[in-house]
């Protein structure tokens, strides 16, 4: 028996198919979830994928956060369900207050699309255990609202509790506070990041590295060994 990992499609989601494919490549079973679903089909974990849900109207993620599917998701995430938010999914998780801080427009106001070097800061979350702390990886980054901000108290808490999961290396591409690319919640079951690990899972794609695959093998191992 393998793990069943849900991928939510909102109106305007872009990377749901890529995310399902990454989950399948890792050896788990992807389960398509729809924004209007009122239950999570008993999945073992959920990925909120990238895109522009509801056209990014109001704020990125602000309308998706109130979708029917988010009600059981928020409730179960608080009870320990592993949830990964990628890009727009990260924005939705901050709007839902499952992760602290929020994203502003990139400080240079341009859409950015590049292979981004990151450092894995926390290899103990549900989604990062197949990495080692300090490991340097390359993951594609593509967004315009990617500047992570939080108040000083929140930043201090994140730093002191080791909840900065990923940090931008070499260059800060968007003005994010403390070079933060991704964060985790206190329990480590909810993780969000702006770069796209689901686009770095096959040797034929991009730089030919598969640096994103450990996200999906991490969660599979955790669920299967649970």
């Amino acid at each position: 028996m393998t793990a069943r990992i849900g991928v939510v499609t909102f109106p305007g989601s872009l990377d749901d198919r890529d995310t399902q494919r990454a989950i399948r490549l890792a050896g788990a079973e992807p389960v398509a979830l729809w924004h209007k679903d009122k239950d999570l089909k008993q999945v073992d974990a959920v990925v909120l994928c990238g895109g522009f849900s509801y056209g990014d109207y109001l704020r990125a993620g602000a309308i998706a956060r109130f979708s029917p599917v988010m009600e059981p998701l928020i409730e179960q995430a608080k009870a320990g369900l592993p949830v990964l938010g990628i890009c727009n999914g990260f924005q939705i998780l901050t709007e839902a207050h499952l992760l602290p801080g929020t994203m502003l427009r990139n400080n240079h106001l341009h859409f950015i699309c590049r292979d981004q070097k990151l450092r894995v800061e926390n290899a103990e979350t549900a989604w990062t255990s197949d990495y080692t702390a300090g490991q340097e990886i390359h993951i594609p980054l593509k967004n315009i609202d990617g500047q992570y901000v939080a108040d000083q108290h929140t930043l201090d808490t994140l730093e002191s509790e080791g909840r900065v999961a990923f940090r931008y290396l070499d260059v800060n591409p968007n003005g994010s506070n403390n070079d933060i690319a991704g964060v985790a919640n206190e329990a480590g079951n909810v993780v969000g990041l702006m770069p796209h690990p689901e686009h770095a899972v096959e040797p034929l794609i991009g730089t030919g590295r598969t640096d994103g695959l450990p996200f999906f093998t991490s969660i599979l191992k955790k669920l299967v060994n649970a």
Partner: protein
Amino acid sequence: MARVVVDVMLKPEILDPQGQAVQRALPRLGFEGISDVRQGKRFELEVDGPVDEAALARIHDLAESFLANTVIEDFTVRVEEVAEAVK
């Protein structure tokens, strides 16, 4: 029917790159003497029924939970007098 206006602005300590871009364009357009620009959002809510304290409290909750992200934004709620349509 009454109109309630919710103004949402980035908090003063939050960098506003869009406002800065607008401000930087001003001298090129011949507008001098404007030292800062902040960009925000204005929502006009047409309310059915009376705008009493309870209605305003509900709109306040709506603004706090949905229209504004209070991590980065402040908001104000005010009732706007709607002028009678010209006959």
